[in-house]
């Protein structure tokens, strides 16, 4: 009956009905959830000639990828920028987070109890509250306009969550392992690089995926820190599809294209994605 291996128990005689109702409700909810996806996919795949908002719900007469071909050239630069930005940002942020998490988990230095919450707090701040100073400082540093400033802020504002992910992970690693490395005379940094990091690969995956997704989906920082040539895909998408001036099917196709990388990451590595989510709730 069950797939999760719940222990067998005496079911009430109503159970079969309950189970059936449950499946019906679940499928109904799935349908409800997929309504936007249906509209997105169906519209994007229609022959442009068949598209009009009033025909939103109709299935395409024939499948056509023309719309994708139309919008891709416009979206492509933003797409490229997002890759160039999100990949280094997520990796660097995760490496720094690994170092922090390691130290915070294994080294109860005086004040650690204060430092950790202070780092965590950075995860929740509204970015409006740092927007004005951030722009002032990055302007002084000549980091506004291109991707570099955007990468830098994604690294820094990613640190709280990456630190948290690694700290939670390293807390579960036995101290003996670390101790024996230290007894062997390995220094702190070597212990981290050769002992701790290799066993923390799952945490690394969680952290990189989480960071990649948030950097990819960010809008506000991209809007404030980049000029047209360096726009990340979300800003480009909003510019293309934001007004109703743009044909409805092009808006849908653009939204779909811009979401593909994070969707792929989610579908292929959902397990790690889930753990990132859980970490975000502070309760590992």
């Amino acid at each position, binding site marked *: 009956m069950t797939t*999760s291996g719940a222990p067998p128990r005496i079911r009430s005689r109503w159970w079969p009905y309950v189970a059936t109702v449950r499946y019906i409700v679940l499928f109904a909810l799935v349908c409800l959830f997929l309504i936007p996806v249906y509209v997105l996919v169906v519209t994007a795949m229609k022959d442009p000639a068949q598209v009009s908002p009033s025909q939103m719900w109709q299935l395409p007469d024939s499948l056509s990828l023309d719309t994708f071909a139309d919008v891709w050239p416009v979206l492509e630069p933003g797409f490229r920028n997002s890759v160039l930005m999100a990949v280094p940002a997520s990796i660097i942020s995760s490496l720094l987070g690994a170092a922090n998490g390691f130290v915070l988990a294994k080294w109860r230095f005086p004040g650690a109890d204060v430092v950790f919450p202070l780092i965590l707090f950075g995860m929740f701040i509204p970015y409006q509250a740092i927007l004005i100073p951030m722009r002032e400082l990055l302007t002084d540093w000549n980091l506004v306009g291109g991707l570099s400033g955007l990468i830098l802020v994604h690294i820094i504002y990613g640190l709280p969550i990456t630190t948290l992910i690694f700290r939670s992970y390293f807390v579960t690693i036995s101290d003996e392992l670390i101790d024996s490395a230290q007894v062997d005379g390995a220094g702190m940094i070597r212990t981290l690089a050769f002992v701790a990091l290799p066993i923390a690969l799952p945490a690394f995956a969680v952290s990189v995926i989480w960071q990649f997704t948030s950097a990819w989906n960010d809008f506000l920082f991209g809007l404030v820190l980049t000029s047209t040539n360096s726009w990340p895909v979300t800003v480009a998408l909003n510019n293309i599809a934001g007004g109703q001036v743009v044909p409805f099917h092009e808006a*849908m196709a653009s939204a779909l294209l811009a979401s593909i990388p994070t969707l792929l990451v989610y579908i292929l590595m959902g397990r790690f994605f889930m753990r990132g989510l859980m970490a975000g709730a502070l309760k590992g």
Partner: protein
Amino acid sequence: MCRIRKWGPAALLVAPSLLAIGVFVYGFLGWNLRVSVSDWRGLRATYDYAGLDNYRRLAEDTRFIDGVQNVVVFTLVFVFGTLVFGFLLALLLERGVRGEAFFRTVFLFPMAISFIATAIIWRWLLSNASGAQETGLNRLFDSLGVGFLANDWFKSDSYWAVASVAIAAGWALVGYIMALFLAGLRGVSDDLREAARVDGASEAKAFWHVVRPMLLPVVMSAIVILAHISLKTFDLIYAMDAKSRKIETPALYMWFITFEGLNFSIGAAIATLLMVGIAAVIVPYIWYSVRSERRP
């Protein structure tokens, strides 16, 4: 319990991050606070002290007050709706369902999509155009014979406008809450429930007495996470209908008054109030989380 003996390298490892967070989080928050009590208007920064003038102006600014009301409604609908539906989904999936992975995937995937893409889809679904232009859910309702459900959505004149934006936000985040509850429910061991049942409690009673207290922390986490997201929400509303006062929240007003009205000091004051609102929710939460972790 000093596992790492040489603290020099350890300090070196964390110092860059601590410094970066020190500057980019706390330094900037302080800097923003400074701007909020300045007279900075226009494209060049000025830091002449203006006391609480900007806050006083906000207290009388109807656009700001409307925005606060909107975000309160948005938060209530979004938090409550997402909690209820997230819990319902978790409950449906909790006791082993064939194809659970499939269901989980479907309910969670909107989390992976940007708010911009989400808004673009939903602004069409929630369109209130009529006649030949009618589209989205209203059109669907009409063709299903439940046309009376058709409404103005985010262009309504009432708080329903901002509440309907919360529908899109809920679609995006309900899977997250479901996952949190699922983890929480599964954390309650079957033994415990079994024990309760053996004591003669019905399934429902066992649930109520054993499971409920253990879920309280999950509910707390979920509320905090949802509430802080809702106060911050910018992209979703910006991409849905950027300049509509019906759904404008302080997060958006800050953007417009700062970068379009060039009134940086007022923008900073709004941002500071936003920060205070979020801190009121977050600080106790972090404090509680860290403290409960320290207790064995």
